[in-house]
């Protein structure tokens, strides 16, 4: 099968869905020029000049318009240049998009996809490096997606666009150029289905988004030490497939939960807490969380390197639960 980069997989999903459904359109800053900083929206203006909107810098407006268009039956795909800027539009996300179906007693459907490029990449410091998936998980009415491979990215983006409810779609900037096999045809990946990215017997390593490749690297490194880890990628954080995660932990008896974000009140907290509730009697060691320390992203490379967890951090955690 052909191998393409994650950003190309996203672009392909977008093109296919725009082709398939006239109600899909794109809106965001710089989405025409270059197809955005990540080139994900490239080529759309040529094929569908009336279905791509390059905007002023006004995130609250952008998301607000998206919500309204979705209420009227369209399927907006909104690009927020950096997830950090979604802080400018949280009312629109939380009070408008997420709650509308509920508040109207099921009358409203808000099929909006909000693309949130996230995480560290290059040295852009504290206001351009956040992740914050856990915020969105905590909001009832939102679906939260965080693909780690080009294959998942394409399949999940297509599902996101077809979903009748709002989706916060996290794109790890560090993964945009990572490559993987992606079918050329139409396929979708259902929400709420975790994927076992590596089979193993000793420890279940739940890894989110950008941590998946690092966990897989750790898996190879740990082979030499005789540890055989299983890497589970939840792929969607809401809905969260605790069933698959628990099933794995029941087999291995040990769990490490890895996220790139600060782990304090982060995504891993929910997974670890749920494991502690649901797999208590199967656990043979405390669950260990891997994440960044609870600090904003610094600027200098030397500081960033000790902030963002790497495969060595995963290895350390595995050793700890095996000890």
């Amino acid at each position, binding site marked *: 099968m052909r191998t393409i980069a994650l950003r190309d997989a996203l672009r392909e999903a977008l093109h296919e869905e725009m082709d398939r459904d006239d109600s899909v359109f794109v809106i965001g800053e710089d989405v025409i020029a270059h197809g955005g900083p990540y080139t994900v929206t490239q080529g759309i203006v040529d094929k569908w000049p009336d279905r791509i909107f390059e905007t002023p810098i006004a995130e609250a407006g952008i998301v607000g*318009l998206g919500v309204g268009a979705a209420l009227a039956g369209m399927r907006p795909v909104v690009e927020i240049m950096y997830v950090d800027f979604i802080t400018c539009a949280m009312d629109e996300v939380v009070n408008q998009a997420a709650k509308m179906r509920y508040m109207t007693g099921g009358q409203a459907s808000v099929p909006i996809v909000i693309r949130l490029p996230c995480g560290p990449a290059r040295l852009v410091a504290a206001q351009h490096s956040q992740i914050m998936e856990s915020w969105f998980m905590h909001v009832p009415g939102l679906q939260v997606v965080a693909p780690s491979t080009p294959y998942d990215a394409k399949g999940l983006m297509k599902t996101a666009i077809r*979903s009748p409810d709002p989706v916060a779609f996290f794109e790890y900037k560090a993964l945009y150029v990572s490559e993987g096999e992606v079918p050329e045809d139409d396929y979708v990946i259902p929400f709420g289905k975790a994927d076992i990215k590596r089979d193993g017997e000793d420890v279940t390593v739940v890894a989110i988004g950008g941590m998946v490749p690092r966990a897989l690297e750790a898996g190879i490194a740990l082979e030499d030490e005789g540890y055989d880890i299983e890497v589970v990628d939840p792929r969607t954080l809401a809905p969260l497939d605790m069933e698959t995660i628990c099933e794995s932990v029941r087999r291995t008896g040990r769990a490490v939960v890895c996220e790139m974000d600060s782990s304090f009140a982060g995504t891993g907290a929910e997974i670890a807490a749920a494991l502690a509730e649901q797999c208590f009697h199967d656990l043979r060691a405390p669950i260990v969380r891997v994440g960044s320390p609870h600090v904003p992203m610094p600027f200098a490379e030397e500081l960033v390197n000790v902030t963002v967890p790497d495969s060595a951090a995963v290895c350390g955690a595995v050793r700890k639960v095996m000890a």
Partner: protein
Amino acid sequence: MTLNADLSRRIYTDMWRIRLFEEEALRQTSLGTVKGTLHTYCGEEAIAVAICAHLRDDDYVLGTHRSHGHCLAKGAPMDRMMAELFGRATGSCRAKGGSMHIADFSRNILGANGIVAGGIGPGTGTALASRIRKSDQVSVVFFGDGAAARGPFHEGLLFGSLWKLPVIYVCENNGYQQWVPRKNVAVVDSVADMAASYAIPGVSVDGQDLEAVYEAAGEAVDRARRGEGPTLIEARTYRFYGHSLGDMEEYRSREEVDDWRENRDPIKLFSAWMKERQWLGDDEDEAIRAGAAAEVAKSVAYAEESPLPDPEDVLTDVLDTEWRVSA
């Protein structure tokens, strides 16, 4: 559409429907049957009815925390609205929204909104949908004078203008923002003047004068439908009751309220206006009022007879759980 006798009577009827619906809702809260909060539209009725008179069923309306009037004027069934206030399973929002989130999608009433200025972006977005689909549906967003302070007002109008979207921004300037007089917290008197920053027409009208609102709205709706872009209409008005339940109204004088009720009641003014034209007789006037009162009474009966929501319903309508993705 000109304001003929027939249309005027229909509009006039709607004003009474709103007034009596809300006064009944207030009475019900004092009885404890309607719970939660209520923001009444009494005193501002001319605006919603004059504007909605120009709208088609498929045009979109987005409201505020004070939207009973917008809903009734756009055609939401009154019985389901009353049932919603009563918190019954038959309510417009199945008892999940209440007064502040009342909506009726069957009439393209996309919802009241508990966030000040919360509807402005979405209402611009419904207009964007019309534009993409090349339909000629227009969108109307109502908001208070307080909303003009918020960023989303500014951003929404910018987008509306930039893409010449078919949207009418209706600012109901009642001179107060909760318990604070607008003059204490605003720097320009007229919200309409702010339209200049967005290069769209801004018109300020007397919101108690039905004809004035009707005419401004007609132009704005036509303009929008022709694809010429948004209009900002400011309607100067007044609310007869407190901001919401329990408001002690220390920020305004009894005299001021009485003066408006006596001399600037849009229902009285429109009744007199029609009578001047011989479009309404005293009997008819009374019949219209009585008809509205009867409808309100029926809506209360409907609500009272309706079942309470099933506690299990609390878990539904978060997401569309029926939906399954398919390739």
